[in-house]
């Protein structure tokens, strides 16, 4: 199953599983990152990490290592569907984002 880190800006997905344990998992669950919730990628930080997501109607930023714990499903590529809206520069951004994730 793909994780959040496999998505590109303005992709949408449904959370399937939140892995990991202890403080990280508890914090993610408390902030609404729970299975069944919709999540969208908003933007990547200038240095490639962390990445900003939209979940439960607010903006949350997660490091690559944290986003890896979140398994997702139903990738709706760049279609918009809520506040994030389609990016005008989608291709360019996606290219940059891939570079950011390619570690």
């Amino acid at each position, binding site marked *: 199953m793909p994780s959040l880190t496999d998505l590109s800006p303005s992709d949408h997905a449904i959370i399937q599983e*939140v892995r990991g344990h*202890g*403080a*990280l*998992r*508890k*914090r*993610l*669950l*408390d*902030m*609404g990152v*729970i*299975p*069944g*919730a919709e999540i969208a990628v*908003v*933007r*990547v*930080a*200038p*240095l*490639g*990490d*962390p990445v*900003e997501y939209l979940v*439960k*109607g*607010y*903006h*949350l*930023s*997660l*490091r690559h290592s*944290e986003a890896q714990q979140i398994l997702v499903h139903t990738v709706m590529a760049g279609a*918009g*569907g*809520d*506040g*994030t*809206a389609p990016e005008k520069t989608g291709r360019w*951004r996606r290219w*940059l984002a891939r570079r950011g994730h390619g570690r």
Partner: protein
Amino acid sequence: MAVRAGAQPLVVLAGNPNAGKSTIFNALTGARQHVGNWPGKTVAVSSGTAHWNGTSVTLVDLPGTYSLSAHSLEETIARDFILEEHPDVAIVVADATNLERNLYLAVQILELGAPTTLALNMMDAAEADGTIIDVDLLQRLLGIPVTPTVGSKRRGLEDLLQQAIEQATPQPRTVDYGQELEQAIAALQPEIARLIDPRAPRYTALKLLEGDPRIEALCDQSPAAVALRDEARAAAQRIGTIYGDDVELLIADRRYGYVHGLAHQVVTNSRSAQQRSITDRIDDLVAHRALGLPIFFGLMALVFVLTANASAPFVTWIDLVVNQVLAGWVTAVLTAVSAPAWLLSLLVDGVLAGVGGVMVFLPVLLVLYFCLAVLEDSGYMARAAFVMDRLMHLLGLHGKSFIPLVVGFGCNVPGILATRTLENRRDRLLTGLMVPLMSCAARLPIYVIFAAAFFPGNAALVVFGLYVLGIALAVLSGLLFRRTLFAGTADSLFVLELPPYRMPALHGLVTHMWRHSEEFVRKAATLILLASIVVWALLNLPVGVDDTADSLFGRAAGVVAPLFAPLGFGNWEATGSLATGLVAKEVVISSMSVIYLGDNEAPEPQPVDVAADLRAVVVGFGEAVLESVKVVISILPGVDLVSHDGAAGDTSLSIALQQNFSPASAAAFLVFVLIYAPCIATVGALKSEYGGRWAAFSIFYLTALAWIAGLVAYRLALWLG
């Protein structure tokens, strides 16, 4: 600080970070607030008094939290405060623009069993988003009073306070966690009420089932409680097998399901979700891949320029008031009544010179705290963490660690206190040990005076270089500590909310600015005054001492001075001034004034013209305002209203310094001042946050580092000529 003042009802404010809790707190308490330690804990909570219709209540502002687990210090404080102080009312401040996640915390606070009311804050922003909330329905569904508020405009606050004071016993509804969990809770509750916590048995049962380490630790007290814990573990295991998920997830899922249902019923949104918000558009710019970092560094530079330049005219003005007008009046009055010379010397050379030298520094702090408050309240600080995290992570730190470090440039004390926003102790400690290397504003006057005296052409460069050196040493120390003291510890979570941008409320900014600056004035008035008088006394004892070198001060400093000979300033004057700097760094300069200039002939009493003096004071203030406005406008590209010819001429202190230091020893002195042991207030903050051993470690580490770096600087300066 007694949290509960007499019979006044105790009201706590709880809520998510960024929900506008502090804005409501500031609006309700006004100036009647202070930060103090929660008795028995080394944790500061803000408290104040609010009045409604003749009733006074004590209001406590709890740290912002998303939940009530024990995974972060803030959450633990908020939870323990409610459980241990049992407030009369808890006001949960919820952000109306993000009802679901805010209600998630509210239902947990209801589980703690305290009487609760809900403030639906930022209703104006919700309406602007096209969100309509059925307040009456929410009130019925939650079973507690709900008041719509706009904290920044003080709307609804009277009603909120009235609800909090007058409310009848609420009938809160509880989350239904499903048959299996509810059975387990029901089975555990009676024993929990008997053995662990009689007030919040439902909450405690949930936490035991989740396996919350802190609540589990409470069970170690008695064998019966241990049996209870084992029972809870077994139940959790059983439920986990039935659902194929662990209890932690089930509880979060049920709770979110419940608040999602609530929000769904009470919220109607008329606006198309496709619309991009202003926040999105600002973030497109400030978090842009190419522009994000330049914008961040640009903003930091702007804060810096504003702090240094916009305050400068006021610094000159305060100098005029204290050192010329007030000193003139004191001299005139004392001469008129034929007071003894030693009293005149004490007041003018000791008290006025010492405190005046510190007060001139107040405008710098006001501007700095104002800038930081704007960054914080607008929501930009979270973006700064977002943009900086990758770099800070190289040190094993959170992007948020950058914030205490930036605050440390103003004053190390709030910088160290700001580490509390970090979640694990390792991060707090690591950041806290780096903060003293951030060159605080109190060290700036020392740099400025020395740089102007010894490197007049490159003064700005020298000052800037010292700041950069501090940062570089902080980074190196951070890397060193991470590899040695904290080897093998895990990095902290990042997980950061990027809240919507808000226009900062002027009232909040001013409160913030005042509260921090006022602390400094108090310090100046008591601690530093005392230090100035002690130094003056040491300099003038034994009675009748003529040469300062023969005074108690000179003799004591002379004993230590040889230690600094390799650094080029092994004389008692420099050593003594450094010693007084432990009281507060800015005292170094006032001590030097006293030491180098204090033995001048007493000033000839000038005829005093009170009217002319007052006129000069008022006109001087007007000019300072004008000049400061010009500086701010001049920051705009292409505008230059400030005349650059008026570089301050050599003051008498500069001349004295030039006679006593060489450029190389001045450089070594500056490097030493940058690094050596932090001031008493900072040591106090280190001790209260991390314990006495870490404070002591910081003192030794920094002083040793300062000596080595000073030696290197001296040798390097000599070599470069």
